[in-house]
């Protein structure tokens, strides 16, 4: 009888002890590396250094061999050089499938086939020095559009030899998801993964405090960075940002954005300065953020109005030139 009474108490005590011990044993680990022409950083809390830089580096290098335009022998470069297409690998397939879904959802404004235009405007791997004329743009538009590629099994077909892919707008998000997956395989459930300003967050820090995320200022001056525009407490999910404040140049007195509207062929010229997207995974957030930049403020707000799985924080320029920001209902974790 007495035994029976004591047992639940003992169990509860034991569990409490375990939890406390676990909390105490959690340590912070940080990995910092270099991939895809930018830096990445992983912070995780675990009892031991379960995941190492060698693992994350090799994972990212493998992804580069599939979808990096900077890797001359990558699958994506082989696809771009081919006349009919090539057999692609699993990561490539995962990215292109998601890219095509997002292409449909954004009415063609997020387009994986925009590369010929990006190159023409001087933002490609090989730098073009001459601004394209309207005849060139019209010609290139015939090679752009998701209807010009089809995926059948493992074979990615191009319907015109001139069709070229640029997955830079979405591959970073996918890379972040892969890193998150790697951590989860090691049963790490408190982490923050960042690659090129794209984030994936899970759980809380030791001591149960949330991860805090800064949304970068829009001056685009890395040498004397301005203070964060916003600091938010992040919940589980992914946060990515697309902005035209860092990669741009001035031509004819106007700023030329590196973001090209795939429907018109011209660099974006709208009120959007940056959009920070929250979604469940980074491939989604990253896949949509460029599309939102192209949609412009009103269309993006309308698009996200009833969404329960995606939200955005948008910085834009008012007609009078002043900078303003707004946030959609489901931008999770956002705190004024």
């Amino acid at each position, binding site marked *: 009888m007495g035994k029976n009474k004591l047992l639940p108490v003992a169990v509860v005590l034991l569990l409490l002890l375990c939890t406390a011990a676990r909390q105490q044993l959690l340590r912070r680990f940080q990995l910092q*590396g*270099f991939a895809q*022409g*930018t*830096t990445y*950083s992983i*912070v995780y809390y675990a009892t031991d250094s379960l995941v190492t830089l060698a693992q994350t580096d090799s994972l990212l290098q493998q992804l580069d061999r599939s979808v990096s335009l900077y890797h001359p022998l990558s699958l994506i470069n082989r696809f771009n050089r081919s006349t009919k297409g090539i057999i692609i690998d699993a990561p490539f397939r995962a990215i292109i499938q998601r890219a095509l879904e997002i292409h449909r959802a954004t009415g063609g404004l997020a387009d994986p086939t925009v590369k010929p235009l990006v190159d023409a405007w*001087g*933002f490609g791997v090989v*730098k*073009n*020095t001459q*601004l394209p004329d309207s005849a060139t743009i019209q010609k290139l538009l015939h090679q752009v559009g998701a209807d010009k590629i089809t995926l059948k099994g493992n074979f990615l077909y191009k319907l015109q030899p001139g069709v070229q892919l640029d997955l830079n707008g979405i591959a*970073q998000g996918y890379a972040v998801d892969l890193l998150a997956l790697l951590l989860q395989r090691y049963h790490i459930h408190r982490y*923050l993964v*960042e690659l*090129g*300003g*794209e*984030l994936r*967050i899970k759980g809380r*820090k030791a001591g149960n405090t949330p*991860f*805090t*995320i*800064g*949304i*970068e200022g829009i001056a*685009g001056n*890395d*040498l*004397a960075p301005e203070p*964060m525009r916003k*600091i938010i407490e*992040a919940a589980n999910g992914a*946060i*990515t*940002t*697309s*902005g*035209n*404040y*860092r*990669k*741009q*140049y*001035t*031509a*004819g*007195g106007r700023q*030329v954005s590196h973001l090209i509207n795939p429907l018109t062929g011209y660099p974006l010229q709208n009120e959007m300065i*940056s959009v*920070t997207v929250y979604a469940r995974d980074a491939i989604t957030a990253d896949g949509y953020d460029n599309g939102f930049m192209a949609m412009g403020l009103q269309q993006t707000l309308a698009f996200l109005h009833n969404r329960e799985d995606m939200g955005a924080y948008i910085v834009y320029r008012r007609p009078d030139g002043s900078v303003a920001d707004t946030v959609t209902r489901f931008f999770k974790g956002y705190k004024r």
Partner: protein
Amino acid sequence: MERRHFLRNSGLLAGGLLLGNSLFARSSAAGPVKIGVIGCGDRGTGMIHSLNQMPDLFRITAVCDVLDFRLLAAQKLDKTNSWKTYTDYRKLLDQADIEAAVIATPLHMHYPIATAAIDSGRHLYLEKTMTYNIEQALDLVKRMQQRPKQVLQVGHQYRYSPLYYKVKEMIEAGDLGTITQIDCRWDRNTTWRRPTPNPSLERTINWRMYREYSGGLVAELLSHQIDFVNWVFDTHPQDFYATGGIDIHKDGRETYDNVQVMMRYPDKGLTANFGATCGNARDGYLFKIKGTKGMISLLTDQGVLYPEKSLQKEKGTVDGVTGATRITWNKDGGLPILPEPTKDGTSYALKDFYNKIQTHELPDSNVFTGARTAISVHLANQALYSKIACSWSDTYVLT
């Protein structure tokens, strides 16, 4: 890319402005500046290539060299078949249509040719180092003071690149904090000799080896960095300490192939170290400017800022930052100062030379800064070869 577009467009813009100014300056209706190149060695032919690429700004009408084979080689760069050739610079200066001259001769000839060109009323692009000694530098300053409409630009071309202007701006804005140390090197692992078709031309071709003609590694290489430090801090070194020797190539040369110079700028609380060797190439061109807030590491066409780690930690109040992707060049925490490498500094320098000829304004690398650097170089060499520390004298009047 971005930069190139920007420059091209600002170039067009500048062209427009020049038209406006032409009423009270050189008429741009006169077309490109007609220019003669005196000295057609490595640097001279380099200048010819650069000038040839700017047909709207310059038209070469004459070239001069004391060596026939150099003159022949230079003539091959003449696509218009119109250049006159001379072996005597005085004859070139007699050619009436010439408006400006490039002087790219051995150092000891800079002064006699420059004075002749100045006296003949020509604008002058005078290669660095401006003069062989201090007296000549002071004399050119005096001459140019009497000729405010004539342009004399000294060929410290590296600091004409947008990168070096940007670095100057950052230093002036205090981005590096208090700067106390500068490290400069310009190393190579070669003899620094040119081949000679026959032994009698040894001293003419390999003039850099002989003290009668040359200021050696300090004048030919380190002068660029010496000049940049003077320019950015608008000062000159006060104290000069130096050592060196002929340690690698004992081939009869007189100028040291291994030099180390220390300069002290007491008004700025600054020490700068300048070294060059012909016995190791690993560092090549090295230029590090060190302040309490960060360090800038420069190549001729690229620069990286390394903020001090202690300051980075202070900023680290968030766990992660989201933003548009930042392109990084290296894995060690450095931030590129410009997104892309710049072009060769000569093209920027020549563009500005053209502009200054139109407007009669003082170039950024002018006779005053040129003299300040020439004197610094000369005092460094004096310390190097005399083994006695020496100091800047207040009698050097550069205003």
